[in-house]
């Protein structure tokens, strides 16, 4: 007979034993040089910096810090390769090289996944199942376009731009490199790429793969370093285009510094995306979508659903379920296959997140933090929820880039559209509803580059990605992603 449960029953916990991904097969050198003109070369700066495993705070390797002279060398190599070799390679042969890179990445997927996790703090299941396969898929996808550019842009004459400078962030290190390099090569350009300073390793592994693939020397050059290295690429006179993914602040600096030049520019910047739960949504799946939207990759996602809007008549239910779900998340060693939330990418970023959490408390918002055991060593942040917030709060307006979610309620659809669009950003949005009509109404009125319906954080090489307003311009992925790397003539 079913009974009311009054007393607390004897409950034993079934905690999962550690299931660590092996690292024996992974080779990380003590020191990495720059990859220029098909060779690893010592930086002319003579300087190296440490790259840290954010989960252990231990130094993993030393990375070369490229300076102006190094960047100049890389751009010259890229120009030479463009003029003498790459522009003469037939489109179908370009495709073969890109395809070969994809295959080699696939073969070394396990190694790449482990290195990505060690270097960035993201959980191994994510590197293994999302980052690395998607990165491979971008190369596969753009390999297919290399000899079909005439079909991508019918009735136009398609020309490559020349040498492109690419600067990528630390949240999806290898994936962002793939997003940038694959379409650039497919369109016939040569590349100088700078990975983020905290996550250079997989880009350098990619350099090894590119070397193995036999891609002509100088077609892809990888110059590691800090902000000054990136600035040297942006300001180099012989670069035809800059593609940048990162913060809006840096994006504005780049745009200002290339003003008056003929350099082309695409920017994929920050976001403060709205995730909207309507009262007819499938609630349990929506809760999962909220968790995926903001806690995926520790919230280090430019399109993270960091502003949650819940219709008031289901708000209590959604919050109760969300808090319970947050308590379930396992936070800890990113190499453990059972970990849900890994380490924050860097000490600096952890400080930023903690600063915003303090601001949220000062602004009078109610805070809820999941209570899993956070490891003592390493940069960790418990999943955090702020309720009782307003549009005017800084934690609602500014991008935090961490596992911090603000929750607002709304009464009518018009109200939520107004509030969701009341942001300088416009990268993405999520809508949760059982009614197709409501989904289409909202998706056409939200000023966001991507609108997901009943899901969140879904990426595919065939689908364009990019933002409105201060989230940037230009699109990456799909046929749209090619247009950022070509000159079109009629």
């Amino acid at each position, binding site marked *: *007979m*079913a*009974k*009311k*449960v009054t007393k607390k*029953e004897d*409950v*034993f*916990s*079934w*905690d*999962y*034993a*550690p*299931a660590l991904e092996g690292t024996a097969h992974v080779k990380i050198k003590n020191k990495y040089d720059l990859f220029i003109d098909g060779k690893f070369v010592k930086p002319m700066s003579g300087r190296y910096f440490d790259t840290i495993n954010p989960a252990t705070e231990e130094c993993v390797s030393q990375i070369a810090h490229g300076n102006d002279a190094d960047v100049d060398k890389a751009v010259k190599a890229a120009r030479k390769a463009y003029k003498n070799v790459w522009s003469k390679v037939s489109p179908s042969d370009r495709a073969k090289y890109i395809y070969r890179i994809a295959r080699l990445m696939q073969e070394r997927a396990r190694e790449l996944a482990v290195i990505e996790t060690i270097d960035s703090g993201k959980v191994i*299941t994510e590197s293994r*199942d999302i980052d690395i396969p998607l990165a491979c898929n971008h190369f596969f996808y753009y390999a297919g376009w290399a000899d079909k550019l005439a079909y991508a842009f019918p009735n136009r004459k398609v020309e490559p731009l020349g040498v492109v400078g690419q600067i990528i962030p630390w949240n999806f290190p290898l994936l962002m490199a793939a997003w940038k390099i694959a379409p650039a090569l497919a369109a016939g350009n040569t590349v100088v790429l700078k990975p983020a300073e905290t996550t250079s390793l997989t880009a350098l592994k990619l350099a090894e793969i590119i070397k193995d693939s036999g891609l002509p020397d100088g077609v892809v050059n990888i110059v590691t370093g800090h902000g000054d290295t990136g600035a040297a690429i942006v300001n180099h006179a012989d670069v035809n285009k800059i593609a940048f993914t990162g913060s809006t602040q840096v994006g504005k600096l780049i745009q200002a510094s290339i003003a008056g030049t003929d350099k082309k520019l695409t920017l994929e910047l920050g976001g403060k995306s709205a995730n909207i739960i309507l009262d*007819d*949504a*499938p*609630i*349990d*799946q*929506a809760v*999962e*979508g909220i968790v995926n939207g903001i806690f995926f990759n520790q919230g280090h996602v430019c399109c993270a659903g960091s502003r949650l809007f819940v219709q008031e008549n289901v708000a209590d239910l959604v919050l*109760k379920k969300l808090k319970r779900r947050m308590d*379930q998340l396992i936070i800890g060693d990113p190499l453990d*296959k*059972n970990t849900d939330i890994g380490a924050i990418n860097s000490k600096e970023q952890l400080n930023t997140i903690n600063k915003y959490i303090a601001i949220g408390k000062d602004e009078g918002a109610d805070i809820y933090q999941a209570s899993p055991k956070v490891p003592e060593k390493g940069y960790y942040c418990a999943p955090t929820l702020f309720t009782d917030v307003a549009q005017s709060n800084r934690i609602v307006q500014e991008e935090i880039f961490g596992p911090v979610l603000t929750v607002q309620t709304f009464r009518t659809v018009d109200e939520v559209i107004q509030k969701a669009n009341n942001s300088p950003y416009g990268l993405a949005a999520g809508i949760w509803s*059982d009614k197709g009509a409501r989904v289409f109404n909202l998706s056409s009125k939200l000023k966001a580059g991507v609108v997901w319906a*009943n*899901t969140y954080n879904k990426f595919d090489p065939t689908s364009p990605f990019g933002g409105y307003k201060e989230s940037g311009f230009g699109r990456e992925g799909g046929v749209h992603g090619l247009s950022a790397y070509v000159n079109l003539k009629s």
Partner: protein
Amino acid sequence: MKNNTSNIVLPNFSESPRIDKVGVEERVAKFQKRSIKSETKIQGLKMALSMIDLTTLEGKDTPGKVKQMCYKAQHVHDVFSELPKVAAVCVYPSMVDVAVKAVAGSGVKVASVSTAFPSGQAPLAVKLADTKFAVSKGADEIDMVISRGKFLSGEYNFVFDEIAAIKEACGKARLKVILETGELVTLDNVRRASDIAMYAGADFIKTSTGKIQPAATMQVTYVMLEAIRDFMDTTGIKVGMKPAGGISNSKLALHNLVMVNEVLGAGWLNNGWFRFGASSLANDVLMQIVKAETGVYQSSNYFSID
């Protein structure tokens, strides 16, 4: 109708919470990604063994076969000491008396299917008589089937009243309500049927008879577990869960336990609240336990088939 939920306000079953199939599949995939190793695995395997309702539901069942199964239920693999007994044996009403004698004093429960199992195509009077017969022979648990035809035609009150009537006929026996999810087709239907069964007085909700495919998929079990959670939140009443049919190997059983652990919590991780309806699962679990303890796989010839 008097039952344990008689003082609870009934929801409108036409408006059961919506279920998004794609979202459910993604959630289930996350459970399947959990890596269950070393002591957690042994713990899980022993837990799974203790949750099995060892089942024989065939027209050709004999008292001899039922007796053998009852012996196995208490002595799953005597080569190894410290293995738990299974939770229950599950038989047709006509075999209940044989089973009751065979497991007497062991702590293993006797479950009987009833209500014109597996189709449920009989009038209520017959279903009540079927149930009362099994209870009178000493069944501890009754596994009834819902009238799927009535459910699919939207006669939710009929289904509700029938379950409530059977519940009353059960007396002290615990009632498991089989939804036969393979015939309900959609997850929205699974959720609605779960709600109806629980509000009508089910002690357990159960996926399938084992006679229809698909049976206990993880997607279906997940939706039912969420329904149990919501029912507990709303009414304070705890209901058990029994996936049955199709769970034939240890890995799938462990994934199911992970799902129970993460949706309902450890309070459901015992055979009072969670069961596996299965016949071939036990030997696979045994084989894995022996492998974990000795380091080698043994041939299936070393494990008795019934």
